[in-house]
């Protein structure tokens, strides 16, 4: 991950941003808002993770999106516009196809947002925020959230060690490979159980959750964070007000009825766009400023 200006802000700013963006992404089904959120999430993930994010988005998210959009009309037959009939006799409707596409976009968008969240909200930030209020829960959450990447990494380590003694899943006949794979899995499970206990013990021995403890990482809530938090609050208020006013309303069944694009709703869309793209904007502004400084030297 490259240095990200937004990730260097105070954790509370990061957390408020991701909480609001994820909530709005899950709540609003209006196509304009979905598109805004999807594009912003994709842009931010590419900015954070570079080529890896591009590969992830194209290799996994795109097929997922297509499959989800196609599966919905196969099972959901509501809607007034009948396009054709399935062999079973159930109709395929335009509404169910559009709804399938919209929900697929929403699903993929939320996943991509979470990939950004994982890159920005590291576990030390999370514990810094919530370690005092709910120590046990925040420790569990921060452990669970990095479950998959951590285990994948450990499997790589075990697999490399096994390969050096000729017992990897890529070595030997079919039966041999299966046995090796099971062996690796067994080592992995043992390690995971032991590691969980060790983590708990080491946290306890360091006095985690007791009064007067400070966090591993310390953050200062400075002027920039205050300004960002204020901007965030204003944007969230505008978007939430727009949602309450019904600008985000989208009905897909029995017929598609979307809240029309008006001047007022355009304000909400714009605010939503700025909110979602805030980290990208900050990064761009910082880069421009840096280039400007460099050019003056």
């Amino acid at each position, binding site marked *: 991950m490259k240095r990200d200006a937004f990730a260097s802000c105070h954790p509370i700013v990061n957390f408020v941003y991701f909480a609001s963006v994820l909530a709005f992404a899950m709540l609003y089904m209006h196509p304009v808002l979905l598109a805004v959120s999807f594009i912003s999430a994709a842009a931010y993930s590419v900015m954070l993770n570079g080529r890896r994010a591009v590969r992830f988005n194209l290799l996994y998210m795109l097929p997922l999106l297509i499959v989800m959009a196609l599966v919905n009309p196969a099972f959901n*037959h*509501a809607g*007034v516009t*009948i396009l054709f009939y399935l062999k079973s*006799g159930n*109709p395929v409707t335009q509404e169910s196809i559009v709804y399938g596409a919209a929900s697929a976009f929403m699903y993929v968008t939320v996943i991509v947002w979470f990939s950004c969240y994982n890159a920005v909200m590291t576990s030390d930030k999370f514990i810094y925020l919530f370690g005092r209020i709910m120590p046990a829960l925040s420790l569990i959450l921060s452990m669970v959230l990095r479950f998959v990447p951590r285990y994948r990494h450990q499997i790589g380590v075990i697999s490399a060690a096994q390969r050096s003694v000729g017992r990897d899943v890529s070595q030997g006949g079919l039966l041999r490979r299966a046995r090796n794979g099971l062996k690796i899995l067994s080592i992995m499970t043992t390690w995971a159980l032991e590691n969980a206990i060790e983590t708990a013990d080491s946290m306890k021995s360091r006095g985690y959750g007791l*009064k007067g403890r400070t966090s591993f990482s310390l953050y200062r809530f400075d002027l920039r964070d205050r300004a960002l938090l204020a901007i965030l609050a204003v944007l969230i208020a505008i978007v939430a007000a727009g949602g309450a006013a019904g600008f985000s309303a989208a*009905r897909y069944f*029995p*017929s598609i009825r979307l809240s029309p694009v008006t001047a007022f709703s355009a304000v909400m869309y714009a605010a939503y766009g700025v909110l979602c793209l805030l980290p990208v904007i900050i990064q761009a502004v910082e880069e421009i400023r840096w280039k400007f400084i460099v050019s003056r030297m």
Partner: protein
Amino acid sequence: MKQTASVKKWLAAAAIVCVLAIAFFWGGNDYGSKSPSSGTTASTSASDEAPPDEGANEPSQSSGAKQTDSGGEAGGETGKQEAQPNPPVDLEPDGAAEPGYTASADSESNGNQPDSAAPGTSSSGAGAGGSDRSGNKGEAAGGGGSSQASGGKDGSPSPPAAVKPDKSGGQAAGQGTAASEAGGKKETASKPKPTGKQDEYLTDPVPAGKPKPVEWQDVTVDKKKAYTATLSVTCKSILDHMNQFNEDKLEVLPKDGVIYPEQSVAFYEGESVFDVLLREMKKNRIHMEFEMTPIYNSNYIEGINNIYEFDCGELSGWMYEVNGWFPNYGSSRYKLKDGDVIEWVYTCDLGRDIGGDQASAGDGK
């Protein structure tokens, strides 16, 4: 430190209670709003839920009801013991108290009062205090059954015969009997046979004189023999329950509630009610969605013209009627005869609002 921990615990408990309270008042709201809307439903549900209410209408019975009530309170522990097998007993009238049904069917519509009053006392005499509700019901359905108290007692040890596998069966069975008990409706004189022996697709025995279900797998459609039947699809019941109707669906609701006006349609030898409906809906480009339900070996109609099940309250959905009878099995298993009159009707109240309560008591699909 300990102080704060206990305070936190109490706070957490209070928060949980708050959430439960909100859920209680917010969710499950449909039952309350329904009763004032329709006369018959209100009366049946009232009599179902509160026997004392019924007693107030009929003075002679009130003493019996009160007696049982006080018996329940005085009974104490025995009352509690009795209360536990209550659900099976609730279902009971449908199955076990049947023998006298056809005999008393006529007297029931108006002669309900003396019938139920007399056994009411007998049940309190037997000391079945806790189960006053079920006691009343059992008697009403049983009519002239002589040994009523023993009948009620016999019922509790043998729930399997009475318990319906259908998810709504329990409730429907109880209320269905309550409806006929109140005497509000009297559409079919005969009810399914009491034996409780179901076929492999969980269908109760079909009443005498009505066509038996025919599995669609066994039927071959003979296109050479064409007959005609009459088909109609209506949802007039929604017009009486507009307060429960899904607002989004207003645009697909016909003003007069007629989706497919009554007309004669052609069908071929061996076709079922479902086949005819599907063909006609397709032909007229009327939307319809269905789903195969293997456990009942029949297609279940989820929605017609985008009016779906549960769109008008949680007891709503599509039912069908052939020659004035609501079959107690699915439409794919009803083999048509020449001249049959098929009506697809939308119910907002498990069939009670359209006169098909018995079918829904078993398997309404």
